């Protein structure tokens, strides 16, 4: 069945069960991936998946939901039945409705959907990449984590009021994590990930070069003394921190009491006037962009922090109604509708006179710690408390020298971090989770072994 046929099937089954109000979200995907081990194919994988989530509203306007991978006629009927039963337990205190924007026009950009290259081509490309990475430096002994994949998927939203949206896309990903070993030293590992609309869009050479350079740059390492340091966050690591504390911008988290913000926080000063943060799911560099969210609301660019002040929250239909505003296109379909950011864009505002512009990661000669990548986010972030304590990969720059830091953590508080931003560099870099320049923060605690 295609998505139109599924919609008709659901509509007919709902009629037969006397269910007048329903909506659904579905995804259909075909994925192919390969892994190699020293030139040999290790695991080759293909999967065909279909997931359907149906919501129904009962006569008391309470919502029930069911998710299934069985998209047969009987599976759809069963799902509607189960959702109807679940609606008896629907949340009476926070009702859910269709998004008022579910039938608004959506911005359809060229989806740049590519054709599959096939498993054999994936395997050939990955084998070549592995060989080149192994040959790039004598200390690189293996590439234990590697993979090349391509995915083709369609996402759909429809409801009983006649809304119907669908889009289809393709996406490819390459990751190479190398392991380097030298005599009398601990093994070191680092890597790189590249995304593209299709395999042919991925810059494989740059992935190999990044993985090699990063790994080699950690070969000469040393412990760091526990102290407070001037820190330069790479674009990737700063975006990791912002995403980890995105509950600050999240209306659902505020209502659930797990956010550092509250309903009245709009306008609060969080950071230097030089900082702007947007959520921009439709950004041209966002390979995974989606034109609508789980409730069918169109995706759009939204300012979260404007000149250091909290400007907007991200919303679903129900949180927007409670906050007396409109949905922002950040909902995930579920029994309890989730809210999450799409693609964070960090930039320097026009009000940047208080920044210490001499702090530039490529030219600054004073002592600082460069944080390349933060790890173990799930373990080290307490989003509801604002605190973090995270291991990282990075370097200490001191006396004109750069040395890799061995097993250390950076700890602090997100509010303190935002308030202590001392420079926002001019050049933005594209990462897999958003866009940001390098960000400098003063006086963060680093724990090391020295």
């Amino acid at each position: 069945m295609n998505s139109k046929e599924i919609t008709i099937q659901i509509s007919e089954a709902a009629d037969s069960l006397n269910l007048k109000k329903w909506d659904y979200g579905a995804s259909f995907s075909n994925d192919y991936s390969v892994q190699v081990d020293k030139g040999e194919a290790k695991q080759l994988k293909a999967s065909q998946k279909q997931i359907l989530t149906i919501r129904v509203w009962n006569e008391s306007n309470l919502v029930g939901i069911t998710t299934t991978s069985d998209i047969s006629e009987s599976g759809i009927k069963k799902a509607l039945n189960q959702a109807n039963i679940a609606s008896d337990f629907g949340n009476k205190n926070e009702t859910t409705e269709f998004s008022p924007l579910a039938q608004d026009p959506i911005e359809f950009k060229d989806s740049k959907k590519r054709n599959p290259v096939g498993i054999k081509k994936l395997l050939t490309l990955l084998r070549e990449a592995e060989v080149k990475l192994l040959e790039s430096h004598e200390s690189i002994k293996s590439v234990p984590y590697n993979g090349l994949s391509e995915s083709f998927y369609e996402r759909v939203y429809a409801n009983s009021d006649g809304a119907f949206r669908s889009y289809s896309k393709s996406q490819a990903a390459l990751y190479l994590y190398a392991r380097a070993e030298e005599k009398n030293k601990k093994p070191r590992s680092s890597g790189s990930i590249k995304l593209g609309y299709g395999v042919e869009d991925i810059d494989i050479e740059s992935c190999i070069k990044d993985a090699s350079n990063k790994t080699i740059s950690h070969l000469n390492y040393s412990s760091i003394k526990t102290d407070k340091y001037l820190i330069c966050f790479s674009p990737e690591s700063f975006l990791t921190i912002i995403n980890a504390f995105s509950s600050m911008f999240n209306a659902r988290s505020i209502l659930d009491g797990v956010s550092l913000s509250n309903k009245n926080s709009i306008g609060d000063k969080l950071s230097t006037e030089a900082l702007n943060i947007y959520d921009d799911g439709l950004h041209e560099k966002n390979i995974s962009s989606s034109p609508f969210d789980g409730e069918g609301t169109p995706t759009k660019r939204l300012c979260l922090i404007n000149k250091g002040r909290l400007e907007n929250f991200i919303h679903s239909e129900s949180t927007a109604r409670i906050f007396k505003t409109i949905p922002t296109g950040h909902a995930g379909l579920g029994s309890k509708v989730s809210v999450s950011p799409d693609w964070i864009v960090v930039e320097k505002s026009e009000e940047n006179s208080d920044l210490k512009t001499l702090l530039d990661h490529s030219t600054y000669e004073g002592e600082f710690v460069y944080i390349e990548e933060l790890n173990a986010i799930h373990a080290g972030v307490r989003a509801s408390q604002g605190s973090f304590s995270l291991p990282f990969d990075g370097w200490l720059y001191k006396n004109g020298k750069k040395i890799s830091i061995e097993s250390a953590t950076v700890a602090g508080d997100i509010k303190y971090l935002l308030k202590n931003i001392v420079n926002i560099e001019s050049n933005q870099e594209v990462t897999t989770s958003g866009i940001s320049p390098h960000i400098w923060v003063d006086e963060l605690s680093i724990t090391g072994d020295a």
Partner: protein
Amino acid sequence: MLSSQIKSNEIVFGSCNKDLLEEIIFYGMGLGADFVEIFIENTDNSSVLAEEDFITSVSPSFGKGAGIRIFKDKKDGFVSTNDLTKHGLMRSVSQAIEMLDITDNKKIQVFNGLDKHRDYSLSKKKWINEVPSIHEISEKLLVSTKSLKKNNKIITRKGSYSRNLQEVIIASSDGTYVSDIRLHQTVGLNVIASDAQYRSSGSRRFGSSGMPHEFRLWDHEKAANDVFESSMNMLYADYVDAGQMPVVLANKFGGVIFHEACGHLLETTQIERGTTPFENKLNEKIAHESVTAIDEGISEGSFGSLSVDDEGMEPEKSVLIKDGILKKFISDRAGELRTGHKRTGSGRRQNYSFAAASRMRNTYIAKGEHSKEDLINSISDGLYCKSMGGGSVGATGQFNFAVEEGYLIKNGKLTNPVKGATLIGEAKEVMPKISMCGNDLELAPGFCGSISGSVNVTVGQPHIKVDSITVGGR
């Protein structure tokens, strides 16, 4: 007539599928595969969330699918599909054969048909009728969240329950033909406490496998008291000072440190990748002589227990480390093929869309002879980690763990609560520093995410003392 035709052309749970499974395996072997494995599942899951004094989410889900794995030499091709018809399964076999580029079908491996059906599901078919109803679960969760409301500093109260019922059929060209039903239930409580600028959180999770009545026996009052006390103790806690120090790790979920720091390095997938420092250390000392560590899938009702693994092998009790000496690795079919370590009944996967891999089950450090007080009394200046959060281990063996609830140890006594602590180290360096094990072994349920998805596991240990470890803080 119509009924039997339908049965012979698609997998039907609760029916004999032997002829169809054999036909598909014969098909794969005839095309030149060394080995064919079929994993089929049918799931029926539910989850319920209570927030404050209301049920805010009830989420049922169900589905079915198949994972087909073909081995040729040491390579494997894996295809997953929702199509359980004969045509769909044959197409998946063809796709896997094509991926592996198998063109030589002259050297046909022998397939003598499936063995006698081992049906582990016979006594379990009634489970679905014995598990608590959504109504019963909702009532108990609401009582639980109500009992968390012990003072006005508690600003957020949550109770959650989930139930996964998985029916599986496993068949492979070595004759394996198995059916099973797995039931996992888990229930948890969470609070956030707040007072002026101070905030803390507390959580506890409980879980069982194969015990439909377990939720009814759950002592929600005790759980609520534990969570409340933890959040109150930590509300005004100072941040811990960073540094090297001796630590005592509490029993139960304290075992996550062994799971993450050492257990993963004893899975054969790590040998395959060349990422474990223990690869060539079999029968060598890798830990302090006070350490004996076990991984097993047989403790009745434990969250990581199973009647049969996802490759059709009954789980064994594996003594991984005996008195500090490395004795065994955790192995699956691919691990045995590629590393030579015998299978241990540890081939596990989240669902049909993942190929099985060597994964831990119930993993714990065995009990020693000391009391908890012995361990604390032996430290003049250190940290007691009463409750651990999550953790991770990097590609070169470094690990880190968040401490959810910690107390300073001064002159052999527990003193002030401290927050923000992270334990950092490397398994190879820390294992020899576990110098004392308590006599109070207890297990705790958890979820482990890795190469074959998220699987139910148990971690555990008695109280243990680590002589020196890096504590991250401020």
